[in-house]
């Protein structure tokens, strides 16, 4: 890649209120025993209490732009990587346009992506970097998402819980000509047969009217069968080979806060030891979809774990449907 694109700044907006997972399990009639609690490794999650998704997104965007010292009037593109339903029905409506207005980003145009769970963040990252690299007249991009969970749908797969969902908004500013947090390359691949491993069956054309199916559903059997971390390992190897980087030169991993079990499987597969991934955010936030990456990136920067010129990665299996691995360099 000839033009260097990097992360200029990032910000997260979390709702003020948090709930402990014990009370959420009780509320959603799910069983939380010591085994499940250990598997999840999530203690509490942030929950909206009147805050709207777009208001949180706006706050996150404003903070990210302030940190990036970017005049919003110069912003070229806004990319929405939200995964959960928005304030009106997508794709007829998309939050990115409301944000363009609220931010005053008059020069920008908007793009949004659907599908792929947390990997939607990596799709946004890869596409935004490509737009900046391929178009001379584009120099900055704002990635944004706001995910607010459907009421009563925080425990993913209550009969055999896989995660607990929190609410949050995240924003990342990308700029051309950066010297740090460079987006080196991204490998993305989808497995079409798993398009419906994790989705909301009701509320659109297939089953419009049944409230019982307007909720995120996981096909646990297919989720378990999907070679998730194995695939990410192969994709990372491809990515490293293409960029002539050695595995041992990658010192840290940004990975979704789905569960302790899922994070450990990835760490084992890649060969990451303790301290090479953040697990604290999982305990205190649960799974925030693509914003997990933003939360974990900010913690990585704050803790100074990755030094100048060192490589780090961002990876997600997208619930077995859309896998992605990004290589970045501090």
């Amino acid at each position, binding site marked *: 890649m000839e033009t260097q694109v990097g992360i200029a700044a990032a910000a997260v907006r979390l709702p003020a209120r948090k709930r402990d997972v014990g009370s959420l399990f009780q509320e959603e009639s799910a069983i939380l025993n010591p085994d499940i609690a250990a598997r999840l490794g999530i203690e509490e999650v942030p929950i909206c209490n009147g805050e709207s998704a777009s208001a949180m997104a706006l706050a996150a965007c404003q903070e990210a732009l302030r940190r990036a010292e970017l005049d919003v009037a110069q912003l070229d593109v806004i990319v929405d990587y939200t995964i959960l339903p928005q304030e009106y*029905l997508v*794709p007829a*409506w998309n939050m990115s346009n409301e944000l*363009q207005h609220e931010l005053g980003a008059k020069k920008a*145009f908007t793009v949004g992506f*659907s599908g792929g769970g947390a990997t939607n963040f990596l*799709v946004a990252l890869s596409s935004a970097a490509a737009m900046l690299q*391929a178009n001379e007249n584009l120099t900055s991009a704002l990635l944004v998402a706001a995910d607010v969970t459907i009421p009563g749908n925080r425990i993913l797969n209550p009969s055999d819980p896989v995660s607990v969902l929190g609410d949050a908004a995240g924003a990342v500013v990308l700029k051309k000509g950066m010297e740090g947090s460079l987006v080196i390359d991204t490998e993305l691949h*989808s497995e079409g047969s798993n398009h419906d491993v994790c989705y909301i069956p009701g509320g*659109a054309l297939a089953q419009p009217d049944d409230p019982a199916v307007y909720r995120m559903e996981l096909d646990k059997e297919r989720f378990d069968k999907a070679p998730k971390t194995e695939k990410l390992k192969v994709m990372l190897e491809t990515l490293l080979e293409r960029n002539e980087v050695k595995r041992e030169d990658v010192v840290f991993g940004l990975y979704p806060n789905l569960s302790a079990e899922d994070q450990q499987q990835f760490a084992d597969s890649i060969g990451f030891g303790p301290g090479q991934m953040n697990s604290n955010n999982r305990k205190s936030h649960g799974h925030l979809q693509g914003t997990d990456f933003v939360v974990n990136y900010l913690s990585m920067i704050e803790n100074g774990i990755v030094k100048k010129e060192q490589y780090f990665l961002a990876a997600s299996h997208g619930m077995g449907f859309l896998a992605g691995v990004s290589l970045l360099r501090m």
Partner: protein
Amino acid sequence: MTTGIGIVGASYYLPPKRKAVTDIFRDEQIPAEPLAANVDFQRDIGIEAVHVASEESATSLALNASRSVLEKTGIDPAEIDLIIDFTSIPEEYVAPTWSAAGIIQKEIGATHALATAVNTGGCASYHTTLKVACSWMAAHDRYRTALLFAGDKVPEFNHTYYPITVICDGGSAVILKKGHERRQILSVEVATLGKLHDIWYIPGFHRRDPADKDRKWLHMTADIPKFNQEVIPMNLFMFRKVMRGALSLAGRKQQEVAYYIYPTFSTWDQKAFCQAFMVVPEKVFTDGLQRHGHLQETDMVLDYVDAIDEGHIKEGDLVMLTTNGAGFSWGAALIQH
């Protein structure tokens, strides 16, 4: 300037069942009063009938179009690196959690692809998607072949987007290839006006009125006073902006444009475009209006295919594809034949 990417082929699928607009107006209780002194919506719309999917799903419309373009181009699905769904209205399952991209990948056997969906732009989503796809393909050697598709099916009694147009169901698909020397995409320009984000919207299940038995929450809803006050005054200005942008990026002039592909909304809208940009009607594909009405973002593909097949676009022609979308979005793309 050129992206180095060409259109290998494009195709569409229209469900066989048709419904006359007179029946649609009756079933949807469309007002009979004239819109303005010289425009009567029902009399002047210029659409005779639209295709109706009935039992066919939105995804099946897209799949039929995708299979058609694969057959037409002879592209092996295993060659496809990128699949992007650019459908602009709700599909089988709720977005942005889901899109039809994965199921299309599975059904056509595009085993090596990245499947995703661009979910903004309204009827200009094709242009937004061209911008994204061309950028990905230009920036990375590994993205060489892309399938872009859409499948649109409106709810049974939501075929009229009053007072703009009448909606047809259908699907479309386009294959792009890096290094393809024919039908080169010279430039793509898109623009959005965020303040107009809520002119056209679909409320969604979470906003439904439990007493609503007609599923109005799944219908396209319009803020017509705001449309009249804020979109109408900006519309032609924004068309000019994106077309000039596309021409400037390609280093070409408007006089060089041999043919225009423009949405099939209504007779008065097509007339306004031609008058504003001093384009003779013969240089704009308008025949599709009467045949099928408006197919959302698929207008850009369907009318392009028909214009080629019917001899309106010839080798060497510079073609402008331009549209607006959902009141907030505009796009222009230049294709060198």
